[in-house]
């Protein structure tokens, strides 16, 4: 006997009652429930009861909220937005809107949407770093640069690049970390190393 021809047990039908009433049961399964119901009074009663409960549930009315609630809300908001003694605090919604605007601007600034701008910002950050390090090692006072300094500087460049990637990801953008690492972080780190090596040779 194929599974589809196997009669359903009462327990199984009880589990399927809701799906049966939703008409979300697939054809063959539904036919098996129908076949069971023809010969089972208890399950027919179960279906009838489920239908009755569902009808009663859907007939439950929406409740009307008292006007007093809105009045109280108005009073609470007026009290909350009242200026503090001597201050001129803006309403909460205005402050929230301003905060949102700043968040949006910060996100735009940190994470440009265009795929062209993403590497450009990374490169710009790397360039600033390289220039900064270059200025540092070529400052008038004499400094000693060790290989450990070079390693540390490289590490810092990579860390900054990784943070840029994380911030961008956090802001909801897809970031190819492998590309960021290979095309931005590695060249920047190499550039810093080069500058420091020159300094050692000198």
């Amino acid at each position, binding site marked *: 006997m194929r599974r589809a021809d196997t009669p359903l047990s009462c327990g199984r039908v009880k589990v399927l009652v809701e799906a049966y009433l939703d008409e*979300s049961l697939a054809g063959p399964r539904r036919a098996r429930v129908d076949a069971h119901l023809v010969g089972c009074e208890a399950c027919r009663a179960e279906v009838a009861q*489920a239908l009755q*409960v569902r009808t*009663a549930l859907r007939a439950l009315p929406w409740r009307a909220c008292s006007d007093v609630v809105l009045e109280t809300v108005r009073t609470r908001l007026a009290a909350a937005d009242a200026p503090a003694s001597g201050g001129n605090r803006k309403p909460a*919604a205005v402050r929230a809107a301003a905060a949102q605007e700043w968040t949006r601007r910060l996100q735009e600034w940190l994470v440009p949407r265009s795929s062209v701008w993403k590497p450009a910002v990374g490169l710009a950050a790397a360039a600033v770093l390289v220039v900064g390090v270059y200025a540092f090692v070529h400052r008038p006072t004499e400094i000693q640069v060790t290989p450990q300094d070079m390693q540390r500087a490289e590490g810092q460049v990579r860390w900054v690049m990784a943070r840029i990637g994380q911030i961008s990801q956090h802001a909801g953008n897809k970031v190819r970390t492998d590309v960021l690492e290979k095309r931005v972080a590695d060249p920047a780190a190499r550039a810093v190393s080069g500058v420091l090596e020159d300094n050692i040779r000198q």
Partner: protein
Amino acid sequence: MQQVFEQMAARHRDRIFTYAWYCLGDRDDAEDVTQEVLVRLWRHWALLEEPKVVPWLIHVTRNLCIDTMRRRKTHRGVIKDDPEGLVMNQVASDAPSPGARVEAAEMGARVERALRQVPEPYRSIVILREIQDFKYEEIAAALEVPLNTVKVYLHRGRRKLRDRLREMVSDATS
């Protein structure tokens, strides 16, 4: 801005109140929750896009209802019987005879009491779907659960509701 907020509050207050009412079964508590939700809406509404307002409201209302239930420590129990249940239930019934109307109203009151004994999140899903007529997708967005979970929980919720009704009947007869 205040005017837009007022319109929004007026538009959604019954929805919030109805949900809280059927969750908590107490007018005062439901009003407190509605009031708090509207205050929070005022604080957040500048950050909310229009299509996200209703899911946000439901999400916040549910959390506040759960907080209220926790405070009462009657998470699964009947909170308070609705003394006005029979009077307030304007059951939309086509039943022509007064007897049938009374029967439908009694059934409504029983269902309402049983609903309050259905545990979360089943209760919320049943309320949102059956009473408030939300779509599955809207419930999934408001409760932050997958769509399929909503469907499964709705079936379970209805079954639990029937079980509670059966228990109530057997308690009454024993």
